[in-house]
Every structure is written in structure tokens, then in C-alpha cells.
């Protein structure tokens, strides 16, 4: 299963990157959301999957899943959320100010 999840994560990153290479802002931002999903699944898999119970201590349980990747993912999710929200407002403002959501028209003059 780990290998399947790793392939899924890789596929998510591929699709995300494909979206990042588009011109329209919304697609690009969707790409950033997908890429962080991919990354989080990578982290999760690095701690092995389905070994033992959820990492909440119980008297009866002796084996738990690796809690560290989960903690790392939690931190990362929150940070990603922060960036995504900033990015959303930023792109909204950019699109409004520059009257376009096409990255090709947001190149700017060369070397000025």
C-alpha cells in the first residue's frame, strides 16, 4: 500500500505542477493546493502506514502508528493554509489591479 500511496503522491505533484504551468491564476493556485496534498501524503508514508493504532494512548494498546510525521504534517497543513489564503487575496488583488488573470500578461517589460 505504501508504494501505491507514494505513486499517488507523485501523481498529485505531477498534476499540481501541470496546473502551475498554466496561465490562469486560479489554475495555478489550485496547483499549489494539490502539491501540498502530495507533500503531506509523502510525509505520512515515510512513517509507514497502518502500523498499530492511532497515536492516542490507551491501556490496552501496545503498538501505535508513528506520531512524528503526523505532527509534522499538522504544522505543514497550517502553514500551507496561511500561504494559500495570502495567495488568494494576493491573486485577487493582482487580477483586479492589472485587469487580467493571465500570467502571460503579467510578465512586465524586460529588464526595466
Amino acid at each position, binding site marked *: 500500500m505504501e508504494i501505491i500511496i507514494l505513486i499517488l503522491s507523485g501523481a498529485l505533484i505531477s498534476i499540481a505542477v501541470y496546473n502551475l504551468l498554466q496561465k490562469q491564476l486560479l489554475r495555478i493556485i489550485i496547483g499549489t493546493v494539490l502539491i501540498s496534498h502530495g*507533500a503531506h501524503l509523502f510525509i505520512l508514508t515515510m512513517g509507514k502506514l497502518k502500523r498499530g493504532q492511532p497515536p492516542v494512548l490507551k491501556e490496552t494498546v501496545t503498538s501505535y502508528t508513528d506520531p512524528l510525521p503526523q505532527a509534522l504534517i499538522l504544522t505543514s497543513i497550517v502553514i500551507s493554509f496561511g500561504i494559500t489564503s495570502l495567495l488568494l487575496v494576493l491573486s485577487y488583488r493582482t487580477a483586479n489591479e492589472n485587469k487580467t488573470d493571465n500570467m502571460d500578461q503579467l510578465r*512586465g517589460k524586460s529588464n526595466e
Partner: protein
Amino acid sequence: MSNLAILPIILPLFAAIIVAFTNKKVPVSRTLTKSLSIVNLGVTAFICWYVFANGTIVLETGSWKAPYGITIVADSLSIVLVLTTNILATACAFYAPHSLPLSKEKHYFYAFFFFLIAGVSGAFLTGDLFNLFVFYEVLLMASYALIVLGGERIQLRESIKYVLINLFSSILFVTAVAFLYGAVGTVNMAQIAERVHGVEQQGILTTIAILLFFVFATKAALFPLYYWLPKSYIVPNPVISALFGALLTKVGVYSIIRVFTLIFTYNTDITHQLFIWMAGLTMIFGILGALSTNNIKLIIAYNIIPAIGFIMMGIGVFNEDALSGSIYYLVHDMIIKTALFLLVGAIAYVAGTSDLRKMNGLINHYPLLGWLLFLAAFVLAGIPPFSGFIGKVLLLKGALAEGEIGIVIIGLLTSLLILYSVLKIFIRGFWGEKQELKPTEKRSPKGFIGPVAFLLTLSVLLGLGAEFIYPSIDSIATYLLNPENYIHSVLKE
């Protein structure tokens, strides 16, 4: 005393929160910022002295012992960089009120400024790879906030590219950290180092190392990953450009130094050869970029890139001389880049434009600015007896001792072109006929001069007084060449 180590991170964090609440009263913010920067500088200077006198400080946060909790490691390398950061920050704090419009000051410039310093200091000091990622995000988030501050059309346009590219590399960063965790089961740098050394020569570790290197190289603006840098660095206010130019790329370089002297010290024939190649190409393309434009701010922004090439060259060569050269050059470049960004900001202000083609004969009205620029050009190019020279001598000696002639020749030619690219501003913009100014066109560079002069003096002293500094830098290089020191001081085995 080990609690000291966290002060350079916590103090700016508190400072940020305090000034965030005084945003309505700009004079209060200004005074607070100036005084808090000085306090911070004093504290860091003390810690720096303490580290050099008593050795590395290791703080185990929350008293969780080393590989398990997050450790803050103030060793000689990190503390020197934190000290340099705070010196620059103080200069910028005194420059900012003259350069920023009131609206930006009101909209939390000073808070973002301190957040940035906290993030940068944290990145230098942390001993935990995932925590490094978190501090990267802190400093990046602060930089996002600073780069869009003001919300001009061009700012928005460039910052969205800046944010997206950095976001992409951050994702790769966190993934690479995960891979490393998957391979060696830990995120503590000292323990990673110990474990990696234990299984040496594993291809997958080298692969992850290179992935990590590319992540840092994107932040450090190495060829061929620097495209995001030049234009996004010139859209915000000069004081922000100065902070970016001095700090952001250098965090990336620091990370490369740290990771490739502490953790991935084997397989150097492959990895470090790659570094030297990239260093050479970075110098060439960077300096060609600087020559390609007539925008004085862009000239300086492009000049960040070849400097990174020089530092990278020392890491690639990887002997004592070359490493101490890299560190010397790193410190030198942080200072002189800040000075140049601030200076060019002042020049663009008095000239009313940053287009070199529209400037002429400025020296007749602003002699002091002109001579400061003249001096800065030579400092930047590493002409003796200024600070860049010492770094360059060491880098050259190191590279030549390993027979790396090619990179030395590229480096020397790049130095010439660096000099030309900046001196061009002096020759074309400052020299020339005296232009009569209308009273409305007269602008005084007063207030800009102080911080710039301070930083330039420091650069000159760093060269003339190398005898006082070099032994410490050299001790850092020897320390870095023996990663066991770091591992022992953190893991206490």
C-alpha cells in the same frame, strides 16, 4: 546560560508584536524599532562573544533532550551570521523612516521587519531540519508581506511570481525532509549527521542530499534557479530590497554550508564537483544579468547572484582556506549588498529615476553619494584592502591548492565585470556636466547617508582589520571541517 541562544529569535518576535500594536503612532514605532534593534544587536554581540569564548551553546527547548526535542544550536558559524544580520537590521531600521512613505509604516512595516529578523535568526540557529523549514516559512511569509506592502500594480505582479516559486521550493523542502526522515528516522540535524555517517555511500542519501541542495539553491539564487530574484527584488522600497538582498539568499547559502559540511560530507567527488560547476555558471550568468540593464536597482539586484557564486565556489572546493573564504565573503557580501541597495535607493530618490540613461553629472550636486558609490564599487569587486579582498584571497588560495584553475579564471573575470557594472553608474550617472536643478527637483539625501556610511565603514574595517576577524573565521572553517564537534556538542555522547 544556554537559554541565551534563543534570545535572537524571541526578542525580535516580541519586538514585532509590540510594534504591531503601535502602528497608528508612527513616531513611537520608529523609536521603538530603532531602540529594540540596538538592544537586539547588543544581546547578539554578547552571545557572539560568549560563543567564541566558551564554545557552542546548545539549548534543548522544553528541556526535551537532544535528538527528540528541538535544539537551538548557537555555534560560531550561526552566531556570526546572526550578528551580521542584526548589524544590517539596525542600519535598515535607521534608514527606513527616511525612505518609506507614511502609509507603509502604518501598515505594519516594522512588525514585518522584526518577523523577518526572527525568521532569519531562527533559520541560522536551529538544529532541527523540520524546524528549519518552519523558520523558512516565517521569513518567507514576512518577505511576502513586505514585498507586496503598498500594493502597487508592478509589486503585485512580481510578488505573485515570487510567492509561487518560493512556495514550490518550500514544498520540495518539506518533502525532502520527510524523505530523509524515512531513510534515517530522525529530523535532528546532529543525529541525521551521525546516522548518515554511519551508513556512508548510500546512493539514496546522496540523491536526497542533492534534492535538498536544489531546494536551498533556489532560495540562494544559484544558476539555473535564480530567475525569480532580480525583478522581484527591485519592486519594493529600497530598504526592503536591502533586507532581502542581504538576508534571504544568504539563508539559502547558509543552509547549503550547514547541510553539506555537517551531514553529507562523503561522495564529495560528485556533489562538490557539481557545486563548482554551478558556482561558475552562477557567476557568469549573474554578472551578465547585471550588465544587461540600465536600471540601477536591477544592476545591484543582479549583483547578488555572482556573489553567491563566489561563496558556492568555496563550498565546492571544500578545504580550510576555501571555506573560510566563503564565510568571509558571506559576511562581507551581506554588509556590502545592504549598503549598495540603500545607496542606490538614495540615488534613485535624489535623481528621481532609477534609469541610468536619464542621469548625468549627479556628482556636482551630491558629491558624498557619488564617492560612497565609488568606494562601494571597489569594496564589492573585492579590490584590496577592503573586505571582499580577504575573502577572495582565501577562495583563490583554496581553489588553486586543489588545482581548480577554471573557476579561478571565471572568478577573476567576474570580479572585473562586477566592478564595471557598478562603476558604470558612477561614470555615466555621476560624472558629467553640471545640470541646473529647478528648486522642485532638489532633494536632500540627508538621513540616507548615515546608515550607508556606517555599513561601508564596517566593510572597510573588515578588510583593513582582517587580523582581528580572520582568526575567528578560520576557526569556523576548521570547526566545519570536523562535523563531530557539532554532533558531540548536540548529542553529548
